[in-house]
């Protein structure tokens, strides 16, 4: 993959157009693949903003205990059911707990589940898709039938059943979501692999005796990695939405561990009087999912080899 990134594209892609226009051919500075992608990505302002906000969100999740002066179960009896103030920017709940602190701790759970599902779904989906697409025939039929089976299972109902049985922790929740969600990525990857597996460079590699594993890793994977990165981001958003929905209904992460979903369950009882308990955790879900989706959209444009500068 490192070779792929360093590979100069002086002979192909956007740089060629510039090169043709230059008077002295030798002086044109070729741009690496990475530079081209970064250049395209930078122009997508919403994606850039989304990326920055996401980095801040993840940093705040990592450093939560150092950011907030309160503990997530710490009660302040002088400020029970307090509306947002300077001391408690998101207000407090009926037990006098600081809502901002709880939202930050909840974010640790939601963001971790999102990232975990995104990474593992993509890894499994890519593995299955590449194997099925590369080997074809029986391997393909077998793996894709299984994938289709996973895809047909009713996701939300089964997630709730699993939740009511296992009492999810963030880790088991991630595992169950991965189990249900990797299928679509495998299907998509397989399609991409079918398109490249008969290309000359793959045949050439085969002809000089490169092993199947190495071909898949060095020649097939780099060609589908763009699609996979985009899918990974979309699944982070999807996982965060599903986790919060399941937790909200009481089948996900269980209190006292706060997650954005179960904070909203608590908030429902007093929604009419304490609006801040309903507004802030939900707004965090929307902001996170929105940023991830913008980032995915920007990456899709930047990584698409067919897009023109």
């Amino acid at each position, binding site marked *: 993959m490192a070779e792929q990134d360093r590979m100069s594209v002086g002979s192909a892609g956007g740089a060629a157009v510039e090169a043709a226009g230059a008077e002295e051919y030798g002086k044109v500075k070729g741009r690496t693949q990475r530079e081209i992608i970064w250049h395209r990505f930078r122009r997508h302002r919403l994606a850039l903003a989304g990326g920055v906000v996401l980095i801040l969100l993840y940093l705040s999740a990592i450093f939560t205990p150092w950011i907030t002066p309160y503990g997530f179960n710490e009660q302040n009896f002088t400020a029970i059911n307090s509306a947002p103030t300077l001391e408690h920017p998101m207000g407090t709940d009926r037990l006098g707990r600081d809502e901002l602190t709880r939202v930050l701790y909840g974010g640790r759970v939601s963001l971790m589940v999102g990232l975990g599902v995104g990474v593992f779904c993509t890894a499994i989906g890519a593995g299955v898709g590449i194997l099925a697409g590369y080997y074809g025939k029986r391997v393909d039929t077998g793996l894709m*039938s299984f994938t*289709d*089976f996973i895809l*047909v*299972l*009713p*996701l*939300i*109902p*089964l997630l*709730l*059943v*699993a939740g*009511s*049985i296992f009492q999810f922790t963030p880790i088991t929740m991630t595992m169950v979501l991965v189990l249900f969600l990797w299928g679509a990525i495998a299907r998509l990857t397989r399609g991409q692999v079918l398109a490249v597996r008969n290309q000359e460079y793959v045949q050439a590699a085969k002809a000089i005796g490169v092993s199947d594993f190495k071909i898949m890793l060095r020649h097939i994977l780099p060609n589908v990695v763009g699609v996979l990165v985009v899918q990974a981001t979309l699944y982070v*958003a999807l996982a965060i*939405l599903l986790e*919060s*929905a399941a937790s*909200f*209904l*009481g*089948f996900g992460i269980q209190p006292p561990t706060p997650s954005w979903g179960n904070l*909203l369950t608590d*908030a*429902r009882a007093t*929604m*009419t009087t304490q*609006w801040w308990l*309903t*507004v802030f955790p*939900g707004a965090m*879900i*929307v902001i996170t*999912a*929105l940023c*991830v*989706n*913008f980032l995915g*959209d920007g990456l899709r444009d930047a990584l698409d080899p067919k897009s023109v500068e």
Partner: protein
Amino acid sequence: MLAYTIRKFIFSVVVLFLASVVIFTLVNLGYDPLTSLRTNPRLTPEQINEIASIYGLDRPLYERYFIWIGGFFQGDLGFSVNNQSPVSNVLAPRVWPTILLMGSSLVFTVIIAIPFGIYSAIRKYSAADNVGTFFSFVGYSMPSFWLGLILQLVLGVYLTAWAGTRVFYTSGMSTQGGGIVDMLQHLTLPVITLSVIGIASYSRFQRSAMLDVLSSDYLRTARAKGLSQTRVYLKHALRNALIPVVTLIALEMGVLLGGAIITETVFAWPGLGFTLADALYKGDYDVAQTLLMITAVLVVFFNYVADIAYSLIDPRITYA
């Protein structure tokens, strides 16, 4: 084509069988229907065993599976422990509310999403298109349960306080003796909640389908021979651009019941989704596994229909 249809059918049956095994195993390993009896100090173990044998719970798991699945396809859906009545009696009054809610939101979604998607494609990168793009991002980043809560807060609580009278209800399906207006007051908020995500994704999907068609050769031909713009758009472009969207909607029909769980629970809408969530809370295993199986049947069925319909509608697709 016939071979393809049959192969797909066999696959669907196998999938359904496997899904039923997964559902049955999960539900029956997860819930012990006799939990409350076992902790009751006034019952002896013999009495509990007697109760277990009345419900057939003393038989081995695989035997119970075949009794259940056999009953399911003959219309005997089992017995609801919590309601002390047959499952079919519990579910029957819940079917209509779900159909009403799903149907209304599907109609609402399609009426808004498809025309807007077409308009965005024709006026690509116009202000309306850009605003639409932005809001569709917001739409599918929105957790539907939170949207429901916010609607309840703003259009339920605050609007009622401001107007001095109830405009929209935030729970239930109707008030005793209310008419059609009363029903609409109940229906509005859950329908909006259910529709927003659909509108966001279908309108974008319709837009890209329309853009695909607009750049095709036969459309250039249609313009070249001097047809009016309206005729080109409505007669030549739209017919082809609708195919993928209609397929997508057909596929989503099966998933609707799953999505209904969340919205129906938020709005206490007395439908099947609400019943399923409730049954899972209370461990009413026969109700839960029946509803899960119905969902699975719907999903598999609509997938099958979409597969077949797709190959019929689009002449470019051939199956050996």
